[in-house]
């Protein structure tokens, strides 16, 4: 951090309102120009001030997307407003500065010389938390290498920083989300002021600040005054809330480069560059030449530029970002994603200027939420297991049974332990009866409120046949919920493809239930199912319900059918291997016999889906269900514990490999 002084133990006190003039006067006595907020052209801007009366005393602001208005609220408050259109970069990184000269001397030789700024000392009065963060970000970009801007460093070093904690928030503020304010740490500035009704609480953070504080007419601050100041700042935090989900945002944005919403924003965006001009961290510049009329001398000037400018990414053959959607995407992804890669910090401080000063009111908070929504609930948890070791089962009662297909029966269980009834889609339970081995069965529907689950069991061997043959009122032992289910949170904002074959529909049924519960979180939902014959289709009622929904595309096929069947016949990939949709940004969940999943995976990859976003549910010999018995080991994974759901990327070449 570039600071004017060294960190010192913070001296603190209370400065009565009338002492503000003393502060400005002594800064000027120290030879500093004092830059602070003042009213010009209907807005609060930063410019040179000489007395407290130059400040917007008694003014407040009203800000909203595309809107900024000042109001005379009466009273004497000096800092009762949020940030305006200028930022301190106007002084540390001016819009136009000379950086070099070129001259042709008497003999015709060319002489080049750099221009190094020698700025007079300044004091910035009224720097907010977000703005301190912006100065630190520009320090990182422009002063901390590998390349250094000497003009910036000179101007930055010359500035004494007097910060002010915000005691009002605009509707456009989101410093809380970006973790830049409204609170200001003692050592974040030379002096920190907090305005209360009768004056200012003052804290010195550096030697330079202390030198100023010692000459101010400070009195000791009362505890009551201090707590009033804290409360005012806390109220600002409360008012702003947490409108931007910062955790993981950089990665989510990086995954959304092809989101159609970029084009929707571009329909509103004027590419006017207002957002980059008011942004306190935007640092893109162009370098141009200005020469005198006889061509003997020229000045090289650095001027602010903007990634929204038409020529910004232009090369001889054209421009790399010709479309507005490209430029908006460049700006937003740089601020919130690639800036982190380049500089280890977000490029946004949450000051909200780009929201208020956008002529069409594009609200970056809303666009981030639309393009890169945060994952919510249901992240795959290591669920509370209702029964622990392989010998521990808890009893559940069969409430009813109904046949799904000639060999598959659905059991509706009641009195199910809450940890099981509240499991995740794709998880399974071990089911047992005395004298029989426990069998792994995927949960085919959850009814958490009723402490109930459904299990769809195919009578394939003695244990499954016995369980399928039980009657209502009979009891079974359950252990679970086990395994890692479908990663539904990764489907947020994406088109979703669900492909199942035969009884493989059962493990994906709770997944579809969950998708439809929050239908508007996802793009197009396409469900494909293949079965042996029409009579072998499980969950026929659900298939019919989904087929009737206008917001679901359902297609089913069977391997063989008689004349009465009006639907498709053929393998399940037959339903989409000729489709026109592209899968690059889609996510797929696949469940069925392994060979069917392999054929499906091949077609999905062919359609452009990424292996990281194609998930399959594997079936292996699962005895214990918790990674202890070793039966289901596959490569480095235990299918029961690490799966049964895996992405193709996780499985790599083990998927479909014989003998693993």
């Amino acid at each position, binding site marked *: 951090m570039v600071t004017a002084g060294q960190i010192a133990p913070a001296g603190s006190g209370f400065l009565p309102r009338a002492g503000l003039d003393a502060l400005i006067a002594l800064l000027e006595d120290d030879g500093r120009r004092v830059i602070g907020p003042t009213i010009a052209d209907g807005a609060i801007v930063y410019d040179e001030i000489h007395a407290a009366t130059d400040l917007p005393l008694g003014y407040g602001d009203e800000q909203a997307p595309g809107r900024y208005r000042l109001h005379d609220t009466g009273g004497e408050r000096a800092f009762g407003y949020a940030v305006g259109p200028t930022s301190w970069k106007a002084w540390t990184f001016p819009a136009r500065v000379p950086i070099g000269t070129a001259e042709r001397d008497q003999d015709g030789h060319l002489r080049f010389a750099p221009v190094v700024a020698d700025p007079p000392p300044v004091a910035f009065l009224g720097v907010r938390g977000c703005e301190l963060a912006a100065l630190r970000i520009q320090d990182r970009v422009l002063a901390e290498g590998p390349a250094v801007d000497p003009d910036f460093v000179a101007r930055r070093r010359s500035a004494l920083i007097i910060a002010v904690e915000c005691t009002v928030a605009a509707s456009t503020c989101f410093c809380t989300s970006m973790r830049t304010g409204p609170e200001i740490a003692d050592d974040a500035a030379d002096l920190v002021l907090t305005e209360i009704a009768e004056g200012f609480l003052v804290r010195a953070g550096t030697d330079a600040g202390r030198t100023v504080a010692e000459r101010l007419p400070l009195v000791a601050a009362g505890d009551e005054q201090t707590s009033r100041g804290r409360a005012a700042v806390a109220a600002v935090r409360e008012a702003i809330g947490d409108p931007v989900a910062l955790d993981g945002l950089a990665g989510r944005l990086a995954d959304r480069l092809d989101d159609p919403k970029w084009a929707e924003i571009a329909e509103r965006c004027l590419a006017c560059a207002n957002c980059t001009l008011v942004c306190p961290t935007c640092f893109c510049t162009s370098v141009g030449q200005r020469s005198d009329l006889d061509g003997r001398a020229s000045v090289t000037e650095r001027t602010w530029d903007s990634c929204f400018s038409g020529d910004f990414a232009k090369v001889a053959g054209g421009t790399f970002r010709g479309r507005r959607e490209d430029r908006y995407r460049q700006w937003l992804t740089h601020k919130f994603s690639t800036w982190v890669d380049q500089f280890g910090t977000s490029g946004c401080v949450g000051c909200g200027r780009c929201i208020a000063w956008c002529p069409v009111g594009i609200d970056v908070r809303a666009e981030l939420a639309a393009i890169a929504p945060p994952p919510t609930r249901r992240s795959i948890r290591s669920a509370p297991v209702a029964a622990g070791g392989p010998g521990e089962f808890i009893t559940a009662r069969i409430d009813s049974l109904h046949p799904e297909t000639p*060999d598959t029966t659905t059991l509706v269980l009641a009195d199910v332990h809450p940890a099981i009834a509240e499991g995740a889609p794709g998880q399974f339970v071990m089911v047992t009866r005395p004298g029989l*081995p426990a*069998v792994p069965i995927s949960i085919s529907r959850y009814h958490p409120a009723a402490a109930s689950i459904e299990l769809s069991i195919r009578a*394939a*061997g*003695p*244990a*499954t046949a016995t369980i399928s043959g039980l009657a209502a009122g009979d009891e079974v032992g359950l252990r679970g919920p086990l395994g890692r289910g479908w990663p539904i949170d990764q489907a947020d904002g994406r088109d979703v493809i669900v492909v199942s*074959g*035969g*009884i493989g529909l059962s493990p994906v049924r709770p997944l579809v239930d969950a998708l439809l519960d929050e239908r508007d979180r996802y793009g197009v939902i396409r469900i494909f199912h*293949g*079965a*042996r014959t029409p009579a*072998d289709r499980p969950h026929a009622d659900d298939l019919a319900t989904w087929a009737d929904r206008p917001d679901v595309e359902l297609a089913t*096929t069977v*391997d*063989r*059918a*008689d*004349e009465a*069947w*009006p*639907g*498709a*016949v*053929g*393998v399940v*990939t*037959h*339903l989409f*291997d*000729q489709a026109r949709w592209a899968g690059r940004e889609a996510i797929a969940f696949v469940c*069925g*016999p392994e*060979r*069917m999943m392999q*054929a499906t995976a091949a077609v999905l990859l062919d359609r452009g889906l990424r292996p990281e976003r194609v998930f399959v549910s594997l079936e292996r*010999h699962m005895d214990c269900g918790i990674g202890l018995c070793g039966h289901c080991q596959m490569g480095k994974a235990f299918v029961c514990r690490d799966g049964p759901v895996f992405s193709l990327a996780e499985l790599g070449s083990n998927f479909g490999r014989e003998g693993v």
Partner: protein
Amino acid sequence: METRSIVDALAESPVTRDMGRAERRRLAALAAITNAATGDVLLREGTETSHLGIVLSGRVALRLNVLGRGPITILTVEPGDLFGWSAVVPPYRSTSTAVAIVPTEAITFEAGPLREALAADDDLAAALNPRLMQALARRLSATRDQLLDLFGRAEGQAW
């Protein structure tokens, strides 16, 4: 449908969309649009194949008749896929009965003129034949998967 819109339909169809424009136009000159009602038989198993067709919309069932079991649908031809490949493969007899099971629109090519054009026009043959083979290979591979009866009862299950 005008020749112009047949050209468009061929440009859209997965079978012919990446074919050269000149070949597509020559193919269009041989094509007609056939509209079939539900139940219309387009090809009959064992008889001479009258047409090669590409389904534009609807659904055509390919059925084999098994004595005592009646007609079994072994595949449906969905939009974008073709039927009647035996129009250009000796002995030019249909290997299944093709029935429209919903109202269906198809581009059809009469077998005789199509064979003559392929014999006379090497460029056209070089453009169409690999695409027919691709469609057939896809069908063969899918048929093998069906043959595995993947959803059937697995033998020797432990549980």
